[in-house]
């Protein structure tokens, strides 16, 4: 049963290393699980917890954040900021009952296509094992009869 579950995962990649690692995985025709949909950011430092929460709230079962290896950031040290945000976010998510493992941070250099592919496979399996997140959709205001727009004549 649980094996039928195909997680949907949003992946954030940086323009310089991890997105290129994904490109390399492609050019070298490596095969990996099709569950991750990537978003290209300029840098892992662009990662905003809002993006992660948005993805989880909108139906993703997991979020993968990738950046250049520490010391390799094309913007010097911005990946450390991603690391710090990730660690704090994980603490908060745990309190909210979202398994912190659903939000995974990893480093991949532009050359590490194979590692990138393997990381995706492993992460997909991990999320699959956790099961669907199934966060309830945002409640839409109920269709209650609303008073007509404030009309001129309503005013004395």
């Amino acid at each position, binding site marked *: 049963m649980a094996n039928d579950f195909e997680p949907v995962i949003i992946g954030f990649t940086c323009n310089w290393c991890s997105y290129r690692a994904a490109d390399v995985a492609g050019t070298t025709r490596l095969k990996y699980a099709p569950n991750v949909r990537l978003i290209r950011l300029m840098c892992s430092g662009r990662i*905003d*917890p*809002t993006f992660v*929460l*948005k993805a*989880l*709230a909108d139906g993703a079962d997991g979020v993968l954040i990738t950046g250049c290896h*520490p010391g390799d950031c094309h913007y010097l*040290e911005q990946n*450390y*900021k991603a*690391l*710090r*945000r990730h*660690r*704090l*976010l994980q*603490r*908060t998510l745990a*309190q*909210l*009952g*979202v398994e912190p493992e659903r939000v995974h941070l990893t480093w991949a250099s532009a050359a590490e296509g194979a590692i990138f592919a393997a990381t995706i496979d492993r992460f997909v399996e991990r999320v699959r094992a956790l099961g669907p997140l*199934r*966060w*309830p959709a*945002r*409640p839409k*205001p*109920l269709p*209650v*009869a*609303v*008073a*007509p727009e*404030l009309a001129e004549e*309503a*005013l*004395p």
Partner: protein
Amino acid sequence: MKPKFAMYWAASCGGCEIAVLNIDAKILDLDANFDVAFWPAAMDAKYKDLDAMADGSILVTLFNGSIRTAENEHLAKTLRRKSKILVAFGSCANEGCIPGLANLSSRESMLETAYGGPSTENPAQLRPQPTSQVPEGALTLPPVQPVVRTLDQVVEVDYHMPGCPPESHQIAAVVDLLVQVVQGRAELPPKGSVIGAGESTVCDECPRERNVKHLTQLRRIQELGPLDTTLCLLEQGLMCTGPATRSGCDARCPRVGAPCIGCYGVAPEALDQGARMMTAIASAIDAKEPEAIDGILDGIPDPAGTFYKFSLAHSLLRGGRAAHRETETP
């Protein structure tokens, strides 16, 4: 005939009502220009009186409190129908506020804490029942819903007025505005606007001096020595949520040395107050190694409660899984 004014108190502490009364003489302007049609805290009124009113017959309703019970929801819908302008008044109605923190736990565990916890004297282990028989007949309680919702998650809302409670000077200004609109001297802001608040964050109004932020430790106030009276609290190691909280309060807390706890809610046009505060804190931490980062983060023992103290119910995830799971159909 004067236009009708209403105010209602759903799941909230009542502070909002007091805040309105706190506007001193301004309350007389309200009385002079409006006919108070329904205000259970200030005057006697029965639901049937409300039901009797025509749809749209109330010009403006200040609705405070979040939606916790079926009764809250019923009143929200009723007042929506009866009112031309529905204002989500105060943090509870807008973002869930403290009652919204209940969304971190399931209804059962919440009731358990309230009626069975160590701080409750309840030797008979009584629990509130939907109906109970008393000599006079059957009493019913409105059912507690699985999650706390904000007013705009239940009905459409025209204006939002944040604050826990909204500051008196802001209420006074809004009352002024309403009076002027009624007198035809001013226009209403666009529908959906936030009223009675600023357009930046609390730091904007905070007089404390600040520097480039390199956070090396976060402490509770009692763990710190005497505070510097002029320096930014965050820089002194206190978890101040001023940077991510909408301005409008005039930085009341930081002014007197208490960190901002976020009651004015999410910053203008931001989606999630907690996310904004988390990203700010994590960005400003001065550490690179995971162990060092964790060491500093350990200074925030309750991140969800810290970053979402007021805005949990209206955040992107709207609370914890425990509460939401109940709403799922198995």
